[in-house]
């Protein structure tokens, strides 16, 4: 497995690289955003670990560039997180994961592995899918169409949609979503569902401001509502 680490602090870069290599990963190190992007193109890694605050090109920009061409899982690793908004900003840029420095190396490795697991998830656990004429979710082929136009969902977004559809009509709490989509080690990262839900709504809802598919149960969780359009 190839992992690209982009961080302007050499000491951090080296430490993370050493740790991952010892865990058996193939690690590529980049000292700036531009180098990182270049290396992404040449090496096509399976996971990208990105620092945010870097000179010239920051991690958020790098992430957006990557998202323009690929759905490779991206993990933000920043010392810069102060408020929820910072984390949300990172996730909005397309990151699948946001970790705050400092972190125990073992936990870092576990998170990288979880991220890989999620991206490699196949649709075999999915059953039928959903189609009401407007929204068509094909679980077998992992494809989503809105009004016959194919739309791109990241693996995390897709899994989130699947979990909601499987529980259609029932409220799924934020903790349930975190456990089922991200894994049980993520149950405290409650910003994730919120950010991903709003991304999903932008992609599948006719009007993201007045959602009809993914409804919020205030302070409890979310509920997928089937529509009768046919």
């Amino acid at each position, binding site marked *: 497995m190839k992992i690209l680490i982009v961080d302007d*602090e050499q*000491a*951090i870069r080296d*430490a*993370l690289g*050493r*740790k991952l290599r*010892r865990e058996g990963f193939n690690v590529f190190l980049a000292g700036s955003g531009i180098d990182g992007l270049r290396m992404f193109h040449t090496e096509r890694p399976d996971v990208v670990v990105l620092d945010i*605050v870097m000179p010239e090109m920051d991690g958020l920009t790098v992430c957006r560039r990557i998202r323009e061409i690929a759905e490779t899982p991206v993990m933000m690793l920043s*010392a*810069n997180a*102060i*408020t*929820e*908004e910072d984390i949300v900003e990172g996730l909005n840029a397309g990151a699948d994961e946001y970790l705050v*420095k*400092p*972190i*125990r*190396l*073992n936990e870092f490795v576990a998170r990288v592995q979880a991220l890989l697991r999620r991206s490699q998830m196949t649709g075999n656990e999915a059953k039928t899918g959903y189609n009401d004429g407007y929204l068509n979710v094909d679980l077998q082929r992992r494809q989503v169409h809105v009004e016959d136009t194919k739309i791109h969902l990241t693996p995390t977004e897709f899994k989130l949609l699947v979990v909601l559809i499987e529980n259609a009509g029932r409220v799924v*709490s*934020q*903790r349930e979503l975190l456990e089922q989509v991200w894994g049980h080690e993520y149950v*405290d990262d*409650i*910003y994730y569902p*919120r950010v991903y*839900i*709003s991304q999903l709504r932008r992609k599948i809802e006719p009007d993201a*401001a*007045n*959602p009809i598919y993914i*409804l*919020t*149960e*205030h*302070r*409890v969780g979310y509920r997928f509502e089937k529509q009768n359009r046919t």
Partner: protein
Amino acid sequence: MSDANTVALVINSLTIALALPMLMLLLWQDSRSGVNLFFGLLMVMVIVWSTGMLLGRISAYVGNLTSLTEWGVRLLQIGFTGACVGLYLFAVILSGGQGRFFTRLAVLAILVVLAYQGFIAFSTVAPAFDVQPDGTLRYSFGSAATVIYASFVLMTLAVTWQRRRKIRDRGLVIGIFGFGLGVLVELISPELRNRSIGIDLSAVSSLVMSYSMVRVQIIEPLAGRANQLKAVRDVGLAITSHVRLEEVLRTIAGQAAEILQANGAAIFLNQGGTLELAAVHNMPQAFIGQRLAMGEGLAGRAAVTRQSARVEDYRRDWTGQADMPFAKETFGAVIAAPLIFADEVMGVLVVIEGPQGRRFDREDVRLVDLLGPQAAVAITNSRLFERQRGLTDELEAAKNQLETVLTSTENPVIALNRRCEIIFANPAAAELFDNQSLTGRRIREIAPTSILPTNPGLALRELNQRRVYIYEVTIRERTYLCHVGLLGRPRAQGFVAVLNDITQLKELDRIKNQMIRMTSHDLKNPLSAAMFHIELLQEEGAGLFTDEMREDINTVWTQLHRMNRIIRGILDLERVQSGTLTFEECVVGDIIRSSAHEFEDQAAKRGVKLLIDVPDSLPTVTGDRQQLVQAVSNLIENAVKFTLEGGTVRVSAERIEDQVVIHVADTGIGIPPEAQPRIFERFFRAKHPGAEQISGTGLGLSLVKAVIDAHKGRIWLESEVNKGTTMHLVLPARQATEMKKSEPV
């Protein structure tokens, strides 16, 4: 029968015929008046005298009726005697010269005289008289009786002359003199007596007196009623033309004295149960301010009885406390009338005549009584007016002060009425809108929509519920915090908006956040690098290190970890205080258990027993789970840290009404009382024996406080040095909090 006798008979008959109705009229008008009674007595005596005369003369003329003539003469003498005494009494009482026991003495005198006359009348001795051949009656008085009667008459004339000014009607003076002269003629000259000149004169005089009495007592008051009403109306006009209380009082006093043609007048005002002299007319101004208790003095009595009081001679008749200094020496007749308005005695009007002046009669009292209510209304009006003017002045002053404050403040202030028209804008507000004249214009005309609340419905709801609505607004690239409040209570008359320029504060806040961000980043990066490398060192060099080296590396790790905690503490606090929390349903037991779990090892290591006691039936709470865990963790960490070996930390929770209360109790070293109020401050650490060796950032409890505040909860502590500390933490239970459905985030 001689012509003279015939004339006398006619006059006598007329006297009887006319005197009787006049007497009846007077007694009907006022049967309790002393003057009327004594005049009545006089007239009765005159009638008896005239009747006796008539009887005697007619029986003598008819002849052979000796006994009838004798009875006539007896009646004549009784009437004559009574008339002499009655005239004197009438003159005295008419001129007001009677003493305190006058009435009793007078009644006694009359009884004695009548008894004497009665004794004579029924004695066997016949009266001295003879009938002339032509039928003319001749009679005579004994010399002793003549002297007594004459002295009565002379005394009467003397009294009348001396006190003639006190007798208001000249006809009465003339009548008394005529009557006295008639009696004297009767006594002195037998010739004129025989020709009935004396009695004729007296009879005519008595008619004159009767007429005068009727005029004075009945006709004049009736004729004067219209004038009085006019006078009272003039007084009303005069007193209502003033509004200042002092002027009103002075006018009332002056008008009262004028209308009664009295020497002076004074007004007492009821000042909280005491009468205070407030105005005088024709009296020393120095008396003003004199006080008189209720019930004391003539004025006090009028105030208590709520009825006018009159004395004819203050020196002689008033035995109570004097109303004013030198009153007993200088007052003659006095009337005191209560001034009543709305059933409350406002004061007393006192009208005063000097000792030599005239007497007041019932008509005068009536006049003052007419004046009273008008005066009371005028006093009440002017008091109300003065109070209102006082209030207006105060209001004006308060308004000026407020305007000065509002004008001089740099904060723009705008007040609107209910129709959203501007009713006030201070210069700062005018400057904000290009110095336009703002008053009277609608807010929408002068202000762009962007500066009004984006959701007017919400703003109104907030205003109705909390009376204040606060929102941020940007005008000309400056940011203001706009406080909108309701004007007027309880019903809102409009709105007032105060704008606080917070541009600088916002900038400072932004710089502070940036600083914290930069600091945390700049510190956390090297910290992370160091921690990563320590971890690698521990893993990769595990077999190479001696125990000592391993210990050193652990120490470095612990210290780095501690540094990280401090930075995290600052950032956590920052995050909680900036209000970015994520609320969800939280199970209190879970929060406590996962918080406690973190410290089980630490507690065991320190030999501290950590007990958890949470009932399953606890309601959930709405909150930021991570922050709540952090808060409870901080409390448990502190409790474990500050409890010595063998001690206990007990974490429990219970439901109290709509709240969940979490208690973290330890048997530790406690917090000194002087430190307790500051314990939640940032970076505060209590200086306390036993606490020096225990590490901490001084941020833990301030974070707990910030978290609990953000959850609309409460936290307080009970602590005793060397006994232990209990922290109580209250959160609203979820059932009690509002739930909203299907709302997009």
